């Protein structure tokens, strides 16, 4: 421990963690004293250290999802003192460093709590409902081969940029966890508007909108404009996309009716 902390003062924190071995067993909080935390550690590296110590004490390590540790894969995430991904704006848990906390802090961590994300173990939840939303229309239906030249459709830079702003979503689920209603509007609208804003996405725009919104509603709650999602989003996705989704959804109802009208003159 001493080697690592020669150039920076070590911190001591108290960690209260939700432990639940499996979905069908009741969970509870457990508290650990964590001395010797280097401010240069990431939050997950701090958990690695806690886990190593737990194992040396013969206790099972804390289960948490993680992979890239660069804030792009969207695997990690839990509530830190009631905030999804912790106190830093626009930051995934893996990008959060201990220098953002103070010596002596008491931190409570627990999994995303939402009906749409059933618990798997400790801090791990099942987010496959997000895959179901994508499956119901979150794509452009072009098969491999046969695509025209990439420069055939000029796309104004502001349009490409707006689409990219939406496409930056990492699918971590913090928006759902932060929402008092457990709603997934921010995720769904980001995934939808990434495509709906582009010329390539127009052919399936209305079907996509209805498919994704209706699938979303089978898993998640409704949006009441709290904006907690935007504040928690590690990629700062704007709730403007929710407004665009709502507009598209209203329009889609009409468009669908017109199409039916066309089929049965």
């Amino acid at each position: 421990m001493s080697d690592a902390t020669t150039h920076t003062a070590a911190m001591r924190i108290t960690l209260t963690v939700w432990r639940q071995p499996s979905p069908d067993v009741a969970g509870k909080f457990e508290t650990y004293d964590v001395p010797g935390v280097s401010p240069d550690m990431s939050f997950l590296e701090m958990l690695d250290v806690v886990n190593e110590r737990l194992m040396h004490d013969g206790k099972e390590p804390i289960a948490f999802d993680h992979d890239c540790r660069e804030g792009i894969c969207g695997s990690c995430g839990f509530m830190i003192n009631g905030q999804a991904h912790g106190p830093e704006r626009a930051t995934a848990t893996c990008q959060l460093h201990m220098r953002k906390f103070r010596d002596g802090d008491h931190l409570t961590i627990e999994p995303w709590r939402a009906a749409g994300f059933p618990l798997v173990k400790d801090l791990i939840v099942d987010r496959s409902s997000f895959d179901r939303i994508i499956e119901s229309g979150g794509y452009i239906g072009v098969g491999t081969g046969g695509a025209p030249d990439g420069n055939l459709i000029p796309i104004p830079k502001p349009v490409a940029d707006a689409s990219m702003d939406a496409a930056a979503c990492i699918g971590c689920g913090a928006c759902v966890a932060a929402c008092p209603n457990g709603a997934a509007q921010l995720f769904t609208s980001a995934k939808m508007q990434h495509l709906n804003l582009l010329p390539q996405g127009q052919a399936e725009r209305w079907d996509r909108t209805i498919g994704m919104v209706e699938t979303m509603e089978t898993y998640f709650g409704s949006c009441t404009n709290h904006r907690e999602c935007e504040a928690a989003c590690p990629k700062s996705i704007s709730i403007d996309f929710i407004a665009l989704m709502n507009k598209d959804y209203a329009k889609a109802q009409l468009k669908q009716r017109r199409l039916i009208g066309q089929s049965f003159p």
Partner: protein
Amino acid sequence: MAFESRIPEGPLEDKWDNHKFEVKLVNPANKRRFDIIVVGTGLAGASAAASLAELGYNVKVVTFHDSPRRAHSIAAQGGINAAKNYKNDGDSVYRLFYDTIKGGDYRAREANVYRLAQVSVDIIDQCVAQGVPFAREYGGLLDNRSFGGAQVSRTFYARGQTGQQLLLGAYQALMRAVHSYGVQLYPRTEMLDVVVKDGRTAGIVCRDLNTGEVFSMAGHAVVLATGGYGNAFYLSTNAKNSNVSATWRAAKKGAFFANPCYTQIHPTCIPASDEFQSKLTLMSESLRNDGRVWVPKKMDDNRSPDQIPEDDRDYFLERRYPAFGNLVPRDVASRAIKHEVDAGRGVGPLKNGAYLDFTEATARVGHEVVEERYGNLFEMYDRITGEDPYKVPMRINPAIHYTMGGLWVDYNLQSNLPGLFVLGEANFSDHGANRLGASALMQGLADGYFVLPYTIGDYLAPLLGTKPVSISDPAFVESEQAVDDQVRRMLAIKGTRTVDEIHRELGHVLWDNCGMARSEQSLSKALAEIPAIREEFWKNVCVLGENESRNQSLEKAGRVADFLEFGELMVFDALRRNESCGGHFREEYQTEDGEALRDDEHYAYVAAWEFKGVDNEPELHKEPLNFEFVHPSTRSYK
């Protein structure tokens, strides 16, 4: 065992077209009679699974992630190469081919690389059609940037998140195939064995990570797209869960493992700060477009960088390689940085890095443009180090990033085990001894979208009317038993060392002795040390918990067990290759000014290793590399 590269005859530019005409086809109505298992959902796996399903095959997809969208392809930042010549700067399919062959230090197959360059243009078109939001110019056309090892701008990008956007494109195509073409998706499922019956690949054995259940899946063909083995070194830029298990377990069933010693060190990573560091973070090579790499001329110069005047700085890449400057290929840049750090001119608290300085670029193009180009990378750096790169130069240090070696495949991307296909970073095929920047994304998508869908039919067509081997066949039952036994064995050891401790120990041995520079002496040392660590693992590892619920230590233990065997193979390969080429730098073989010294007369071959048992020396098979179109020359970036 079949060991033919099956490179088609004819002129370079006609080989792929001729081959596509000559391969056997499966009639559209018959494709549904074939079951294909795809393992891995990165760029290669997801694009292959979607494309095969669109053709009509029955596809099952396995990933250990909770969603296919999380594969490590997502972390690639900089871009994807394609020979579009949109910039009017002299690019062509031939130039991309030439740059890639040369960049790979003449250790790749000409025919494969040419095909890669040919299909690169189709990849961009396909991705644009899928809605990948590539960067655009104000007129609405696609933008390009330049990358290391090339003198043209051919890299397409989506901010600093190109890998993410390409993966989301492939993932969305896959989810569409789940919805419309009946693809069966198995998330949180880890492949732990390949089953071979009567000389053909019959299927795989998997473990459900949430329940511990071990089960089999049979198919006419298995496609491995399971990525590289950089995490053998413990510290790398790979995602924490990336591993060698799928390819290594296939190797233990007879698939040859090719060129394992070709490992790429990426020059622009953030230096390690302490012993708890769990992984290293890469910053895109695109930074070298505008950043200038330098160290102080004096040893142990403790002045802060802004206090060091121009005359006391050594811009060593610009000095040593005037033609390519800061944009030399990765292996060359990495070794040059190591040279400076080893000579005591390293910077930062641990003296383990070089500066990457944007002062000149900011003066030239303005703060706003620098922010537009690299804003997200600067922010990432600031988060990790607590330093603002707009004010203080970044510190960079080389780290393991990509592995060019992988399972041996023929021109059809089929391994020597019939019915086992290997795509993307998991195979060895296209990058030779060194990969150029922005070429990994290109290769993953080329393999999945535009190569395998053509070549797999050649294997399947003669099997029409056959059924996959039953999963109650002894070949499957025995394999399931072996997987289950290993799990029980690891849980029963109840030793005193954690999996990470042992992994870190292996990583140190590999980095020190088989890392950026290798010698006969260091490699022999590693060969003596690795078996002892392996023995320690099997005697003294501590895996708590049970098999029947989610157990991340158990998953990790299985992967480290494989690294402990595979690491030795990597060292064997490095020891047998008595030359320096690309990412493989043997200290005994260098020119007077410290550049890699290749030996084309004796080592212009692919080293394909056959597993002969854990404690036995593997057997080397050589596939000679014939250069008909490009004459191998000393790689010079001066």
